[in-house]
Protein backbone atom coordinates (compact mmCIF):
# COMPACT_ATOMS: atom_id res chain seq x y z
CA UNK A 1 0.00 0.00 0.00
CA UNK A 2 1.22 3.49 -0.75
CA UNK A 3 0.95 6.22 1.85
CA UNK A 4 1.34 9.79 0.82
CA UNK A 5 0.57 13.24 2.08
CA UNK A 6 -0.73 14.49 5.38
CA UNK A 7 -3.92 12.44 5.52
CA UNK A 8 -2.12 9.43 4.22
CA UNK A 9 0.27 9.54 7.16
CA UNK A 10 -2.58 10.05 9.57
CA UNK A 11 -4.23 6.98 8.17
CA UNK A 12 -1.08 4.96 8.43
CA UNK A 13 -0.36 5.97 12.02
CA UNK A 14 -3.89 5.12 13.04
CA UNK A 15 -3.75 1.81 11.26
CA UNK A 16 -0.48 0.72 12.76
CA UNK A 17 -0.90 2.15 16.23
CA UNK A 18 -4.63 1.69 16.74
CA UNK A 19 -4.14 -0.58 19.76
CA UNK A 20 -1.60 1.70 21.43
CA UNK A 21 -3.77 4.74 20.81
CA UNK A 22 -6.81 2.94 22.21
CA UNK A 23 -4.84 2.05 25.31
CA UNK A 24 -3.80 5.68 25.51
CA UNK A 25 -7.43 6.76 25.39
CA UNK A 26 -8.22 4.21 28.09
CA UNK A 27 -5.43 5.49 30.35
CA UNK A 28 -6.40 9.11 29.80
CA UNK A 29 -10.00 8.36 30.71
CA UNK A 30 -8.94 6.23 33.68
CA UNK A 31 -6.65 8.96 34.99
CA UNK A 32 -9.26 11.70 34.59
CA UNK A 33 -12.15 9.73 35.99
CA UNK A 34 -10.20 8.20 38.87
CA UNK A 35 -8.63 11.56 39.70
CA UNK A 36 -11.96 13.35 39.66
CA UNK A 37 -13.76 10.73 41.76
CA UNK A 38 -11.00 10.33 44.34
CA UNK A 39 -10.34 14.06 44.33
CA UNK A 40 -14.02 14.74 44.90
CA UNK A 41 -14.25 12.31 47.82
CA UNK A 42 -11.20 13.74 49.57
CA UNK A 43 -12.32 17.27 48.74
CA UNK A 44 -15.58 16.60 50.60
CA UNK A 45 -13.53 16.05 53.73
CA UNK A 46 -11.03 18.84 53.07
CA UNK A 47 -13.69 21.43 52.30
CA UNK A 48 -15.40 20.56 55.57
CA UNK A 49 -12.14 21.12 57.43
CA UNK A 50 -11.68 24.34 55.51
CA UNK A 51 -15.06 25.90 56.28
CA UNK A 52 -15.40 24.69 59.86
CA UNK A 53 -15.92 27.63 62.15
CA UNK A 54 -14.19 27.88 65.52
CA UNK A 55 -12.24 24.62 65.17
CA UNK A 56 -10.57 23.10 68.20
CA UNK A 57 -6.84 22.54 68.29
CA UNK A 58 -6.83 19.48 65.99
CA UNK A 59 -9.26 21.19 63.64
CA UNK A 60 -6.95 24.22 63.54
CA UNK A 61 -3.97 22.06 62.64
CA UNK A 62 -5.95 20.26 59.95
CA UNK A 63 -7.21 23.57 58.62
CA UNK A 64 -3.67 24.87 58.42
CA UNK A 65 -2.62 21.74 56.59
CA UNK A 66 -5.48 21.98 54.08
CA UNK A 67 -4.79 25.66 53.44
CA UNK A 68 -1.12 24.99 52.73
CA UNK A 69 -2.00 21.94 50.65
CA UNK A 70 -4.45 23.85 48.47
CA UNK A 71 -2.09 26.78 48.01
CA UNK A 72 0.93 24.66 47.13
CA UNK A 73 -0.85 22.28 44.77
CA UNK A 74 -2.78 24.99 42.96
CA UNK A 75 0.30 27.16 42.77
CA UNK A 76 2.54 24.61 41.07
CA UNK A 77 2.28 22.76 37.73
CA UNK A 78 1.03 19.18 37.78
CA UNK A 79 4.04 18.19 35.69
CA UNK A 80 6.39 19.29 38.46
CA UNK A 81 4.23 17.55 41.08
CA UNK A 82 4.28 14.33 39.07
CA UNK A 83 8.07 14.29 38.89
CA UNK A 84 8.48 15.07 42.58
CA UNK A 85 6.01 12.35 43.66
CA UNK A 86 7.29 9.73 41.24
CA UNK A 87 10.97 10.03 42.13
CA UNK A 88 10.65 10.88 45.80
CA UNK A 89 8.59 7.76 46.42
CA UNK A 90 11.21 5.75 44.57
CA UNK A 91 13.89 7.35 46.73
CA UNK A 92 12.20 6.09 49.87
CA UNK A 93 11.95 2.62 48.42
CA UNK A 94 8.44 2.59 47.00
CA UNK A 95 8.84 1.17 43.53
CA UNK A 96 5.68 2.12 41.71
CA UNK A 97 4.85 2.10 38.06
CA UNK A 98 4.18 5.33 36.16
CA UNK A 99 0.44 4.73 35.87
CA UNK A 100 -0.02 4.25 39.63
CA UNK A 101 2.08 7.31 40.25
CA UNK A 102 0.04 9.21 37.67
CA UNK A 103 -3.22 8.20 39.34
CA UNK A 104 -1.80 9.41 42.63
CA UNK A 105 -0.68 12.75 41.18
CA UNK A 106 -3.91 13.55 39.39
CA UNK A 107 -5.92 12.67 42.52
CA UNK A 108 -3.76 14.89 44.72
CA UNK A 109 -4.03 17.67 42.19
CA UNK A 110 -7.78 17.42 41.66
CA UNK A 111 -8.37 17.28 45.41
CA UNK A 112 -6.90 20.75 45.76
CA UNK A 113 -9.06 22.27 43.05
CA UNK A 114 -12.26 20.54 44.13
CA UNK A 115 -11.67 21.55 47.75
CA UNK A 116 -11.91 25.13 46.59
CA UNK A 117 -14.88 24.38 44.35
CA UNK A 118 -16.77 22.76 47.24
CA UNK A 119 -15.82 25.52 49.63
CA UNK A 120 -17.41 27.95 47.19
CA UNK A 121 -20.41 25.62 46.89
CA UNK A 122 -20.83 25.54 50.66
CA UNK A 123 -20.54 29.30 50.91
CA UNK A 124 -23.19 29.68 48.21
CA UNK A 125 -25.74 27.90 50.42
CA UNK A 126 -27.74 30.44 52.38
CA UNK A 127 -26.73 30.63 56.04
CA UNK A 128 -30.37 30.19 57.02
CA UNK A 129 -30.22 26.57 55.82
CA UNK A 130 -27.56 25.76 58.39
CA UNK A 131 -29.33 27.65 61.16
CA UNK A 132 -32.60 25.89 60.44
CA UNK A 133 -30.81 22.55 60.51
CA UNK A 134 -29.24 23.38 63.87
CA UNK A 135 -32.56 24.71 65.17
CA UNK A 136 -34.25 21.32 64.77
CA UNK A 137 -31.44 19.68 66.74
CA UNK A 138 -29.16 18.37 64.01
CA UNK A 139 -25.52 18.44 65.08
CA UNK A 140 -23.03 20.50 63.14
CA UNK A 141 -21.78 17.40 61.34
CA UNK A 142 -25.24 16.13 60.45
CA UNK A 143 -26.35 19.55 59.29
CA UNK A 144 -23.46 19.50 56.87
CA UNK A 145 -24.08 15.93 55.69
CA UNK A 146 -27.85 16.06 55.30
CA UNK A 147 -28.53 19.69 54.42
CA UNK A 148 -25.48 21.68 53.34
CA UNK A 149 -23.43 19.22 51.26
CA UNK A 150 -26.30 17.99 49.09
CA UNK A 151 -26.95 21.60 48.10
CA UNK A 152 -23.29 22.58 47.86
CA UNK A 153 -22.51 19.64 45.59
CA UNK A 154 -25.51 20.35 43.42
CA UNK A 155 -24.47 23.99 43.11
CA UNK A 156 -20.94 22.85 42.20
CA UNK A 157 -21.87 20.24 39.61
CA UNK A 158 -20.79 22.40 36.66
CA UNK A 159 -17.38 23.08 38.20
CA UNK A 160 -16.85 19.45 39.17
CA UNK A 161 -17.66 18.38 35.63
CA UNK A 162 -15.34 21.04 34.32
CA UNK A 163 -12.56 19.66 36.49
CA UNK A 164 -13.05 16.26 34.84
CA UNK A 165 -12.75 17.84 31.40
CA UNK A 166 -9.65 19.78 32.42
CA UNK A 167 -8.20 16.50 33.68
CA UNK A 168 -8.73 14.83 30.30
CA UNK A 169 -6.45 17.44 28.78
CA UNK A 170 -4.04 18.04 31.63
CA UNK A 171 -3.18 14.42 32.33
CA UNK A 172 -1.12 14.69 29.13
CA UNK A 173 1.65 16.15 31.28
CA UNK A 174 1.99 12.78 33.01
CA UNK A 175 4.08 11.66 30.05
CA UNK A 176 7.05 13.14 31.96
CA UNK A 177 7.00 10.16 34.30
CA UNK A 178 6.40 7.73 31.44
CA UNK A 179 2.63 7.23 31.59
CA UNK A 180 1.55 6.21 28.11
CA UNK A 181 -1.70 8.10 27.98
CA UNK A 182 -3.30 9.50 24.85
CA UNK A 183 -0.76 12.23 24.11
CA UNK A 184 2.23 10.00 24.80
CA UNK A 185 0.83 7.10 22.75
CA UNK A 186 0.26 9.37 19.76
CA UNK A 187 3.66 10.99 20.16
CA UNK A 188 5.41 7.64 20.20
CA UNK A 189 3.56 6.62 17.03
CA UNK A 190 4.46 9.89 15.34
CA UNK A 191 8.09 9.70 16.37
CA UNK A 192 8.38 6.36 14.67
CA UNK A 193 8.01 8.13 11.29
CA UNK A 194 9.10 11.64 12.31
CA UNK A 195 5.49 12.71 11.69
CA UNK A 196 4.75 14.70 14.81
CA UNK A 197 2.21 17.08 13.30
CA UNK A 198 0.16 14.21 11.91
CA UNK A 199 0.31 12.32 15.20
CA UNK A 200 -0.63 15.40 17.22
CA UNK A 201 -3.52 16.12 14.87
CA UNK A 202 -4.84 12.67 15.70
CA UNK A 203 -4.34 13.40 19.40
CA UNK A 204 -6.04 16.77 19.14
CA UNK A 205 -9.07 15.33 17.37
CA UNK A 206 -9.45 12.54 19.92
CA UNK A 207 -9.06 14.99 22.83
CA UNK A 208 -11.71 17.18 21.27
CA UNK A 209 -14.09 14.26 20.85
CA UNK A 210 -13.49 13.20 24.46
CA UNK A 211 -13.97 16.67 25.95
CA UNK A 212 -17.00 17.53 23.82
CA UNK A 213 -18.78 14.26 24.50
CA UNK A 214 -17.96 14.46 28.23
CA UNK A 215 -19.29 17.97 28.30
CA UNK A 216 -22.51 16.85 26.61
CA UNK A 217 -22.84 13.94 29.02
CA UNK A 218 -22.30 16.17 32.03
CA UNK A 219 -24.89 18.60 30.74
CA UNK A 220 -27.39 15.79 30.54
CA UNK A 221 -26.49 14.64 34.03
CA UNK A 222 -26.85 18.16 35.36
CA UNK A 223 -30.24 18.52 33.78
CA UNK A 224 -31.30 15.27 35.36
CA UNK A 225 -30.21 16.47 38.81
CA UNK A 226 -31.96 19.78 38.25
CA UNK A 227 -30.86 23.36 38.05
CA UNK A 228 -28.72 24.74 40.88
CA UNK A 229 -30.75 25.90 43.81
CA UNK A 230 -31.16 29.61 44.07
CA UNK A 231 -30.66 30.57 47.70
CA UNK A 232 -33.36 32.56 49.40
CA UNK A 233 -31.77 35.51 51.15
CA UNK A 234 -32.04 35.23 54.90
CA UNK A 235 -32.43 38.37 56.95
CA UNK A 236 -31.87 37.93 60.61
Amino acid sequence: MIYAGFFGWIGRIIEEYAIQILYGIGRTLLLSLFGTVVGFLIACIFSYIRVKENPKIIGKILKGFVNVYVTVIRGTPMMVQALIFYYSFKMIGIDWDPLTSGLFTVSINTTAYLTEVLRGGIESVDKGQYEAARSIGLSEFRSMIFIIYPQAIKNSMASIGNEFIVNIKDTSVLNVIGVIELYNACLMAGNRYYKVVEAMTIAAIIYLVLTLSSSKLLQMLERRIGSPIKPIQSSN
Partner: protein
Amino acid sequence: MILEVKNLKKKFGDEDVLKDISFNVEEGDIICILGSSGSGKSTLLRCINFLETPNSGDIFFNGINTKNMNINELRTKIGMVFQSFNLFNNLNVLKNCMIGQTKVLRRTKEEAKEIATKELIRVGMKEYLDKSPKQLSGGQMQRVAIARALSNSPSLILFDEPTSALDPEMVGEVLSVIKEVKKTGITMVIVTHEMQFAKEVSTRILFMNDGVILEDSRTEDFFKNPKTDRAKDFIKRFMEQ
Protein backbone atom coordinates in the same frame (compact mmCIF):
# COMPACT_ATOMS: atom_id res chain seq x y z
CA MET B 1 -42.34 27.58 84.50
CA ILE B 2 -41.20 26.39 81.09
CA LEU B 3 -38.62 29.07 80.46
CA GLU B 4 -36.78 31.37 82.80
CA VAL B 5 -34.35 33.91 81.39
CA LYS B 6 -32.11 35.54 83.97
CA ASN B 7 -29.82 38.51 83.46
CA LEU B 8 -29.13 37.70 79.84
CA LYS B 9 -26.49 39.88 78.19
CA LYS B 10 -25.29 39.83 74.62
CA LYS B 11 -22.77 42.01 72.86
CA PHE B 12 -21.85 42.23 69.21
CA GLY B 13 -18.42 43.78 69.29
CA ASP B 14 -18.75 46.82 71.51
CA GLU B 15 -22.49 47.10 71.03
CA ASP B 16 -24.66 45.96 73.94
CA VAL B 17 -27.53 44.36 72.09
CA LEU B 18 -29.18 42.72 75.10
CA LYS B 19 -28.71 44.53 78.39
CA ASP B 20 -29.56 42.37 81.34
CA ILE B 21 -32.76 40.73 80.13
CA SER B 22 -34.91 38.72 82.55
CA PHE B 23 -38.35 37.26 82.00
CA ASN B 24 -40.36 34.09 82.53
CA VAL B 25 -42.56 32.06 80.29
CA GLU B 26 -45.29 29.93 81.87
CA GLU B 27 -46.59 26.84 80.22
CA GLY B 28 -49.36 27.73 77.76
CA ASP B 29 -48.28 31.36 77.52
CA ILE B 30 -48.46 33.07 74.15
CA ILE B 31 -45.96 35.87 74.43
CA CYS B 32 -45.60 38.47 71.75
CA ILE B 33 -42.43 40.49 71.69
CA LEU B 34 -42.95 43.95 70.26
CA GLY B 35 -40.51 46.74 69.67
CA SER B 36 -38.96 48.74 66.90
CA SER B 37 -36.42 47.27 64.55
CA GLY B 38 -32.94 46.92 66.02
CA SER B 39 -34.15 46.67 69.60
CA GLY B 40 -32.73 43.14 70.00
CA LYS B 41 -35.82 40.97 69.52
CA SER B 42 -34.24 38.51 67.10
CA THR B 43 -31.07 38.31 69.15
CA LEU B 44 -33.11 37.48 72.24
CA LEU B 45 -34.95 34.65 70.48
CA ARG B 46 -31.72 33.34 69.01
CA CYS B 47 -30.07 33.31 72.42
CA ILE B 48 -32.89 31.14 73.78
CA ASN B 49 -31.98 28.23 71.50
CA PHE B 50 -28.31 29.19 71.37
CA LEU B 51 -28.11 30.15 67.72
CA GLU B 52 -26.33 33.05 69.41
CA THR B 53 -24.20 32.50 72.46
CA PRO B 54 -25.06 34.91 75.25
CA ASN B 55 -22.17 36.69 76.97
CA SER B 56 -23.66 36.11 80.38
CA GLY B 57 -26.83 35.15 82.16
CA ASP B 58 -28.75 31.93 82.63
CA ILE B 59 -31.60 30.29 80.81
CA PHE B 60 -33.61 27.63 82.60
CA PHE B 61 -35.77 25.25 80.63
CA ASN B 62 -38.30 23.37 82.75
CA GLY B 63 -36.24 24.34 85.75
CA ILE B 64 -32.96 22.98 84.42
CA ASN B 65 -30.13 25.31 83.60
CA THR B 66 -29.58 24.95 79.87
CA LYS B 67 -25.84 25.11 80.49
CA ASN B 68 -26.19 21.57 81.81
CA MET B 69 -28.23 20.34 78.87
CA ASN B 70 -27.25 18.84 75.55
CA ILE B 71 -27.80 21.64 73.08
CA ASN B 72 -29.22 19.45 70.30
CA GLU B 73 -31.65 17.80 72.65
CA LEU B 74 -32.71 21.21 73.96
CA ARG B 75 -33.34 22.38 70.41
CA THR B 76 -35.71 19.52 69.69
CA LYS B 77 -37.82 20.87 72.57
CA ILE B 78 -37.67 24.47 71.39
CA GLY B 79 -38.92 24.87 67.83
CA MET B 80 -37.97 27.89 65.76
CA VAL B 81 -39.72 29.55 62.86
CA PHE B 82 -37.64 32.03 60.89
CA GLN B 83 -38.58 35.17 59.07
CA SER B 84 -37.07 33.76 55.87
CA PHE B 85 -38.63 30.28 56.30
CA ASN B 86 -35.35 28.45 55.66
CA LEU B 87 -36.98 25.29 54.40
CA PHE B 88 -34.36 22.73 53.41
CA ASN B 89 -34.07 23.22 49.66
CA ASN B 90 -32.74 19.72 49.06
CA LEU B 91 -35.72 18.00 50.68
CA ASN B 92 -39.37 17.87 49.78
CA VAL B 93 -42.08 19.17 52.07
CA LEU B 94 -42.64 15.87 53.87
CA LYS B 95 -38.94 15.20 54.37
CA ASN B 96 -38.44 18.70 55.69
CA CYS B 97 -40.74 17.68 58.51
CA MET B 98 -39.21 14.22 58.98
CA ILE B 99 -35.47 14.74 59.13
CA GLY B 100 -35.36 16.11 62.67
CA GLN B 101 -37.55 13.29 63.86
CA THR B 102 -35.52 10.50 62.30
CA LYS B 103 -32.02 11.91 62.74
CA VAL B 104 -32.32 13.52 66.14
CA LEU B 105 -35.30 12.04 67.94
CA ARG B 106 -34.60 8.60 66.44
CA ARG B 107 -38.20 8.00 65.55
CA THR B 108 -38.83 5.31 62.95
CA LYS B 109 -39.52 6.41 59.39
CA GLU B 110 -43.15 5.31 59.64
CA GLU B 111 -43.71 7.17 62.88
CA ALA B 112 -41.97 10.28 61.58
CA LYS B 113 -44.02 10.21 58.41
CA GLU B 114 -47.23 9.88 60.36
CA ILE B 115 -46.43 12.79 62.64
CA ALA B 116 -45.14 14.98 59.79
CA THR B 117 -48.28 14.30 57.79
CA LYS B 118 -50.45 15.15 60.78
CA GLU B 119 -48.67 18.48 61.27
CA LEU B 120 -48.80 19.27 57.55
CA ILE B 121 -52.54 18.66 57.61
CA ARG B 122 -52.77 21.02 60.57
CA VAL B 123 -51.16 23.82 58.57
CA GLY B 124 -53.22 23.01 55.49
CA MET B 125 -50.38 21.64 53.38
CA LYS B 126 -51.59 18.09 52.95
CA GLU B 127 -51.71 18.40 49.17
CA TYR B 128 -48.05 19.37 48.91
CA LEU B 129 -46.20 16.53 50.65
CA ASP B 130 -43.93 15.68 47.73
CA LYS B 131 -43.43 19.24 46.47
CA SER B 132 -40.06 20.92 46.63
CA PRO B 133 -39.85 24.20 48.61
CA LYS B 134 -39.09 26.01 45.35
CA GLN B 135 -42.57 25.17 44.12
CA LEU B 136 -44.31 26.89 47.03
CA SER B 137 -45.41 30.45 47.68
CA GLY B 138 -43.98 32.34 50.66
CA GLY B 139 -47.07 31.72 52.74
CA GLN B 140 -46.98 28.02 51.96
CA MET B 141 -43.28 27.82 52.81
CA GLN B 142 -43.88 29.43 56.16
CA ARG B 143 -46.73 27.06 56.90
CA VAL B 144 -44.43 24.12 56.16
CA ALA B 145 -41.78 25.69 58.37
CA ILE B 146 -44.32 25.80 61.19
CA ALA B 147 -45.19 22.14 60.58
CA ARG B 148 -41.49 21.31 60.59
CA ALA B 149 -41.08 22.96 63.98
CA LEU B 150 -44.14 21.18 65.33
CA SER B 151 -43.01 17.78 64.03
CA ASN B 152 -40.34 17.49 66.70
CA SER B 153 -43.16 17.77 69.29
CA PRO B 154 -41.48 20.70 71.05
CA SER B 155 -42.93 22.23 74.19
CA LEU B 156 -42.06 25.75 73.10
CA ILE B 157 -41.96 27.42 69.70
CA LEU B 158 -40.15 30.64 68.90
CA PHE B 159 -41.34 32.70 65.95
CA ASP B 160 -39.12 35.47 64.58
CA GLU B 161 -41.31 37.80 62.56
CA PRO B 162 -43.00 34.92 60.75
CA THR B 163 -44.92 37.18 58.36
CA SER B 164 -42.44 39.99 57.71
CA ALA B 165 -41.01 38.45 54.54
CA LEU B 166 -44.43 37.72 53.06
CA ASP B 167 -46.44 39.52 50.45
CA PRO B 168 -49.39 41.21 52.20
CA GLU B 169 -51.96 38.80 50.75
CA MET B 170 -50.19 35.85 52.39
CA VAL B 171 -49.88 37.28 55.89
CA GLY B 172 -53.39 36.23 56.83
CA GLU B 173 -52.98 32.54 56.05
CA VAL B 174 -49.86 32.28 58.20
CA LEU B 175 -51.38 34.17 61.11
CA SER B 176 -54.45 31.95 61.06
CA VAL B 177 -52.21 28.87 61.08
CA ILE B 178 -50.49 30.23 64.18
CA LYS B 179 -53.91 30.73 65.78
CA GLU B 180 -54.67 27.14 64.87
CA VAL B 181 -51.43 26.02 66.52
CA LYS B 182 -52.41 27.95 69.63
CA LYS B 183 -55.32 25.56 70.08
CA THR B 184 -52.89 22.73 70.79
CA GLY B 185 -51.96 24.55 73.97
CA ILE B 186 -48.31 24.76 73.01
CA THR B 187 -46.29 27.61 74.48
CA MET B 188 -45.21 30.25 71.99
CA VAL B 189 -42.96 33.27 71.92
CA ILE B 190 -43.63 35.38 68.86
CA VAL B 191 -41.72 38.40 67.63
CA THR B 192 -44.10 40.31 65.41
CA HIS B 193 -45.06 43.67 64.01
CA GLU B 194 -48.65 42.55 63.50
CA MET B 195 -50.21 44.46 66.39
CA GLN B 196 -53.78 43.38 65.79
CA PHE B 197 -52.63 39.77 65.78
CA ALA B 198 -50.60 40.28 68.95
CA LYS B 199 -53.61 41.81 70.63
CA GLU B 200 -55.86 38.91 69.65
CA VAL B 201 -53.59 35.97 70.21
CA SER B 202 -51.16 36.74 73.00
CA THR B 203 -51.51 36.38 76.72
CA ARG B 204 -48.58 38.64 77.45
CA ILE B 205 -46.59 41.33 75.73
CA LEU B 206 -42.91 42.00 76.11
CA PHE B 207 -42.12 45.44 74.79
CA MET B 208 -38.46 45.83 73.94
CA ASN B 209 -36.46 48.92 73.29
CA ASP B 210 -32.74 49.28 72.82
CA GLY B 211 -31.80 45.95 74.37
CA VAL B 212 -34.05 46.08 77.40
CA ILE B 213 -37.57 44.90 78.17
CA LEU B 214 -39.41 48.13 78.89
CA GLU B 215 -42.71 46.46 79.64
CA ASP B 216 -43.75 42.97 80.54
CA SER B 217 -47.53 43.04 80.94
CA ARG B 218 -50.69 41.09 80.32
CA THR B 219 -51.82 41.85 76.79
CA GLU B 220 -54.95 43.69 77.92
CA ASP B 221 -52.99 45.87 80.29
CA PHE B 222 -50.35 46.64 77.72
CA PHE B 223 -52.82 47.95 75.18
CA LYS B 224 -55.07 49.73 77.72
CA ASN B 225 -52.52 51.11 80.13
CA PRO B 226 -49.03 51.18 78.71
CA LYS B 227 -46.66 52.30 81.43
CA THR B 228 -43.93 53.96 79.43
CA ASP B 229 -44.08 56.82 76.97
CA ARG B 230 -42.21 54.69 74.45
CA ALA B 231 -44.90 52.06 74.55
CA LYS B 232 -47.62 54.70 74.38
CA ASP B 233 -46.03 56.12 71.23
CA PHE B 234 -45.64 52.66 69.78
CA ILE B 235 -49.32 51.81 70.33
CA LYS B 236 -50.44 55.22 69.13
CA ARG B 237 -48.58 54.78 65.86
CA PHE B 238 -50.34 51.45 65.45
CA MET B 239 -53.77 52.90 66.16
CA GLU B 240 -53.25 55.59 63.55
CA GLN B 241 -52.56 53.01 60.84
